[in-house]
């Protein structure tokens, strides 16, 4: 009898507390100038606050490059409740306790999100964020140049691409047909991830053991070296990031380029681009039995470890990643929900891109989800650059990365 009374009392108290919940203020850290525009996020936040009047959200926007620093320094203090993270940070942040783990999604939701996007938020079986910004690389090609070279369709394999590039170069349509972002930065790891998967390789196996010396990786690296040596790839690529690749492509100085979604809009922007109407977007080629592969550039929303309002933060995150929000602003960032790609409203915003995206996203490959990813990526970049500069043979470079990866994995 007494127990029942206590339980009832507790339930009553809890619901009373819920009814008269004190207004809660949470802070959210977002990114400027890429993905959703600030107005979109501000608008969405306003709608959220209207739906949940007891939660007030303060927004901060910083450039992408500064997200990591701000998240790390503020983690313990909990200055931000909701933070926009990045795929490669997940393992590191999870292991180091920089972000909290979040409740798993319902089965129905999980099935409607692209698998690669979802797995980039998981570490050791737990989820540490909600996929939010979706992005991957595509193959961009200059329709005019390809047609002038006699190719009505873009290549379907990397071998075909090299062959097309050779013809383009020999016909002197463009000095260097292919341009890449191979600067010693994350962009190099992204491109290598693409090529490695395309050639059937992988950098780490399912259990997190490094497999750098697998043949697929060597084929990928050899392809890169050959395209430089054969004069198909612009040698400046070793210094270029994705933004530079975009500049080169929209000037009409390249026939082929791998890049993120933004390059399509840039190419159609008459105030900047010299190739309006000539921008072709296609599935990234594969090789052999692999049809295509692309690298996941998506960014999840996570909850900072020092947050004192995790429940409200999660409510906000769910709202901002809901289908309603993403349907409203697909122009700047493609949705994470597979079903939205069949939605006529979404398709109308950029028909060419949406059509390819739906296909391309099923070939999403994540960069290695290991806590020592940053160090690994840096080492990989250095070795690959040494190889591309002709200072090392490809198998030696890969052997060195493998050794380093083993050393990092063994570090307790």
């Amino acid at each position, binding site marked *: 009898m007494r127990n029942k009374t206590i339980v009832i009392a507790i339930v009553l108290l809890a619901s009373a507390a819920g009814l008269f919940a004190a207004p809660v203020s949470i802070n959210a850290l977002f990114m400027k100038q890429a993905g959703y525009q600030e107005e979109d996020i501000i608008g969405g936040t306003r709608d959220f606050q209207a739906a949940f009047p007891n939660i007030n959200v303060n927004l901060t926007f910083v450039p992408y490059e500064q997200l*990591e*620093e701000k998240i*790390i320094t503020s983690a313990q203090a909990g200055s931000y409740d909701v933070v926009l993270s990045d795929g490669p940070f997940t393992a*590191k942040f999870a*292991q*180091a*306790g*920089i972000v909290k783990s979040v409740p798993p999604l319902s089965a129905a939701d999980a099935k409607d999100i692209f698998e690669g996007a979802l797995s980039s938020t998981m570490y050791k079986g737990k989820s540490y964020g909600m996929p939010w910004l979706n992005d991957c690389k595509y193959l961009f090609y200059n329709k005019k140049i390809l047609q002038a070279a006699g190719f009505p369709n873009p290549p379907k394999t990397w071998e075909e691409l090299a062959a097309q590039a050779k013809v383009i170069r020999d016909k002197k349509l463009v000095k260097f047909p292919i341009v890449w972002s191979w*600067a*010693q*930065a994350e962009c190099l790891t992204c491109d290598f991830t693409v090529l490695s998967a395309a050639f059937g390789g992988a950098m780490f196996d399912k259990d997190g053991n490094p497999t750098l010396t697998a043949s697929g990786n060597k084929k990928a690296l050899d392809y890169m070296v050959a395209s430089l040596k054969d004069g198909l790839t612009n*040698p*400046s690529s*070793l*210094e*270029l990031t994705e933004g*530079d690749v975009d*500049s*080169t492509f929209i000037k009409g*100085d390249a026939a082929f380029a791998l890049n993120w979604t933004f390059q399509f809009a840039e190419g159609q922007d008459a105030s900047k681009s010299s190739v309006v109407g000539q921008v072709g977007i296609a599935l990234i080629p594969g090789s052999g039995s692999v049809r295509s592969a692309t690298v996941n550039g998506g960014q999840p929303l996570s909850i900072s470890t020092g947050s004192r309002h995790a429940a409200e933060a999660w409510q906000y995150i769910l709202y901002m990643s809901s289908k309603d929000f993403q349907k409203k602003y697909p122009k700047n960032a493609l949705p994470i929900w597979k079903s939205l790609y069949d939605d006529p409203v979404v398709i109308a915003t950029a028909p060419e891109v949406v059509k390819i995206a739906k296909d391309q996203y099923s070939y999403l490959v994540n960069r290695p989800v290991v*806590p*020592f990813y*940053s*160090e690994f990526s*840096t080492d990989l*970049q*250095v070795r690959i*650059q*040494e190889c591309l*500069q002709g200072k090392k043979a490809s198998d030696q470079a890969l052997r060195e990365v493998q050794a380093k990866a083993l050393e990092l994995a063994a*570090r*307790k």
Partner: protein
Amino acid sequence: MIDIRRQRLSEQRFAFLILLPAAVVIFGVVLFPLGTTFVYSLQNMELISEEKGKFLGLLNYARVLGAPWFWQALARTLYFSVVSLAVETVLGLLIALLLNTRFAGVGLLRVLVIVPWATPGIVTASVWRWIYNPEYGVLNAVLTRLHILGEYRAWLSDPFLAMNMVIVADVWKMTPFAVIFFLAGLQFISASLYEAATVDGAGVFGRFWHITLPALAPTIAIVAVMRTVEKFKAFDIFYVMTRGGPANGTKVLVYEAYLKAFSNLQYSIASTLSYLIALLVLGLTVAYVKALRRGEMA
């Protein structure tokens, strides 16, 4: 007797009083973080490690000093510091001498010389990066127009060249510092000294060598000390221009510390590295000052 002692006591007290504000500000703010950082350097503070918090004594220091990347980064830092400092000092001295004379337009030049220094570091690094751009940079454009270069080339792709190009940008920005301080220092040299020397038959070079240089020695020492500390701590320019690349060519000690702390979450190694850097610079400073004292006495 009592008067002198009282005087010395009140001198101590006076010194204490006027030093207090500075001490409070400096030590109040940095003491705790400095202490924490030092403690981190004695522990395992790798956030992704399972042994986080374990006391390691001087093991981190041994690890860092035994690691090849440390010595490579040290070599790069020394190269950067010595070369850019040497150029800045010589150039700064020459320009200061120029600005100390009278000729048409010297007033304008004195103002303009501040501009590189006044431009925020972020902007300087970005603008120079833009100047060096391999596809559209103005450096390439000008050099090809003057037929010094055959075609556009990459400036930040080769590790050694990249370091030198960063040095050029840093020298451009920081030479005005030396100029201003040398200019101020030149004001303390009385004109009568020069006149006397001329009467004695000393030429331009002789006056410079025997009067200007010795009188400026304290200023040069001060500038050298402060600039060395700055060079060892230089971060912003590498952060914006090269991010430590290419092939680690511009990964100086502080940038390594930044990567260890923020990219790898290895706080203990980063803290260790910071203290090593500070000790190194302290050693250099003490050496400078000792050399200067010896010079003064000679």
